[in-house]
């Protein structure tokens, strides 16, 4: 079995079904849990700290193939291992059919399914949810921190922005490591889905300018942003036109100038990128969208240095981490200083 996207807490083992589905079956059917993903679940139950409860977040999974979790059920029963399923409302019928009886608790609107252990109550389940979020956040923060590469010889001017920096965030370690890439892309896809679900939660939103749109294009304008946009697009169960303008930012080096010829785009753009420091790449992308008669409605990135309002853009930025918090000792200052 290839390495699986699993995070470990002192009290439990955590994973995402959608991440397992991706790793085992590819992104062809990202919202379907198939037999291979079921085997991955069984493998985790059997081999990954089997004395601890297993917490599986089912967010983004809409269907479970017949008998996909049959082995998992047998192993859970044999090993008496508790299983906690989060965000499993969409596959409620499949859980009962595949895994048997469960107890259901509603925590903050989220249905939580508990199998195999009567001692896991609302309090423990709530704690698991909170701790799961914390280990995911810590995982991202740790690996984003590893992306920071200090300049030799002190501060240097950044390639894209007139800032003096003690180093640069390079997303390559996240993109080139399959497991890190899976986690990062999945969380960014969650960010996109959350943005797109906003009208359902806030139908009376007065802010028309930022009202999410049903039809959109994912836009990436950099080498590092491209694979992230592709992955987010594949993982998102929505309409998914992906537009990649290679090397538009942060270092402007367009190789295919004809691709920039103006053709009107009727959808709104959602920008996908790696790190936002000064916001230059975002502004380039914004200008590009305007040139197409469109606009950027939202941005999803791994990390940003400042708060959204400080970039003075007319759209929000969903960011997995705050870069300043990841590397509090690093400094980015204007060249004049």
């Amino acid at each position: 079995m290839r390495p699986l996207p699993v995070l470990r807490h002192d009290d439990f083992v955590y994973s995402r079904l959608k991440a397992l589905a991706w790793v085992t079956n590819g992104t062809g059917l990202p919202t379907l849990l198939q037999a291979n993903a079921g085997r991955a679940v069984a493998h985790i139950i059997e081999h990954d700290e089997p004395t601890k409860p297993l917490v599986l977040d089912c967010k983004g999974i809409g269907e479970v193939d017949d008998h996909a979790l049959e082995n998992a059920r047998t192993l859970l029963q044999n090993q008496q291992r508790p299983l906690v399923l989060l965000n499993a409302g969409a596959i409620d019928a499949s859980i009962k059919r595949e895994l048997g009886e469960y107890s259901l608790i509603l925590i903050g609107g989220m249905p939580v399914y508990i199998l195999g252990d009567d001692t896991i109550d609302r309090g423990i389940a709530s704690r698991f949810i909170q701790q799961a979020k914390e280990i995911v956040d810590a995982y991202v923060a740790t690996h984003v921190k590893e992306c920071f590469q200090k300049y030799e010889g002190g501060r240097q001017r950044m390639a894209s922005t007139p800032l003096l920096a003690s180093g640069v965030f390079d997303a390559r370690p996240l993109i080139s490591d399959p497991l890190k890439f899976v986690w990062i892309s999945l969380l960014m896809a969650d960010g996109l889905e959350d943005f797109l679900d906003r009208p359902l939660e806030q139908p009376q939103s007065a802010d028309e300018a930022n009202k999410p749109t049903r039809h959109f294009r994912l836009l990436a304008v950099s080498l590092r942003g491209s694979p992230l946009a592709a992955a987010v697009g594949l993982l998102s169960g929505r309409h998914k036109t992906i537009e990649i303008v290679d090397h538009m930012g942060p270092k402007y080096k367009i190789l295919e100038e004809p691709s920039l010829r103006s053709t009107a785009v009727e959808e709104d753009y959602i920008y996908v990128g790696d790190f936002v420091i000064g916001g230059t790449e975002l502004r380039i992308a914004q200008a590009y969208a305007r040139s197409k008669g469109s606009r950027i409605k939202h941005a999803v990135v791994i990390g940003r240095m400042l708060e959204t309002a400080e970039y003075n853009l007319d759209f929000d930025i969903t960011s997995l981490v705050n870069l300043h918090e990841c590397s509090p000792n690093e400094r980015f200052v204007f060249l004049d200083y």
Partner: protein
Amino acid sequence: MSATAEKTILPINVGPLNGLGSLCFHAAKTLSHFSDLYREGHVPKVVWDLRNVQPRHMSMAGLTAFLATAYRLRKFTTNAPSVQVSWNPQVFSFWEDISLFRIVSEHDIFRWPDAVTGGSWFGDTNPNTELLMFEYKEHVPDRSDNLDYWKTWKDTVRQKFKDLLLLRCGRLFESTWRSIDFPEKLKDQVAVASAELVVNSILWGGSAAFVGLQRTSNGITVAVCDSGHGFFHSLYAQESSKQKVYPQNNLEALVIGSLINTREYGLRRVINTVIQNGGKVLMSSYDSELHWKEPLWMRIQQATIETEGRPVDLGMLTQTIGSPVTGSPTDEDRRDGFCRLWNYGLRGVRIAFEIPLRREEQFR
């Protein structure tokens, strides 16, 4: 008794191919005649008569069922049967675009007139339609030999088919300006349902599966057809410990086949999914045809629940289905679901389902 050379010419008119019933109505009697001749030791020279097909009036289910039938018949002819067609470039373009020419040629199912194959018919008449053939040439394992291996085999075949489906038909699931915004859900359901039917064709039918997919502005239609053993025979062959009742005819076999899985896996899940989405399922095997729509499916489900704990009363279930319609079904039949019997049947199983697409305005 050795078969004689192809001396007798047997034209088989397939009709307009505008539905499964139409194919059965036009071709089944002649196919039955072919079987009789073959049993008597003759191998007639078959000529498929496709002159009645009209552009924009062919149904994917009818076309797929025809292909499955022609594939089966080819095993009993010395040479590939020839085809009679009316000269209509629009029809040829459609066949080219849905891969009919390619599948027929690759498997030597029948022989097109040279004038047809010599032309270039790329027309993009309907890029939202596709025909697939899924054949499993290796040994199909038996459930009684090794259950775990058998289950893994089923998963593998399902997976292979899903990969093929996405490779060839992925574009059919893409959302458009005016269609649904959750295409993944539909894609998952169609992939799960059609993979299940394909595995059934291979496993229980012992036959290659032909799959037709069509995406229209109203919905997505999938037809999975084979020319295998059919429901009736495979229900006897399964020897499942879960099976308590056995059919006396093909219609009963269709009913049992729809409901046999009490855990709501397999075909029962397929029907449930389609009905829950507001769609319909058409099942056909030999001389019987069963159209599941929500009212009829609800009635039969209720009848099944009422017999829970007791052996299924097959008589009561067929009574719930109602008498087979004679002639054309009424509007009420079409709305509620119905069954139908033909004088002559077609070998194998044909299952077609249609899931309507929710359009954007329905979200508001």
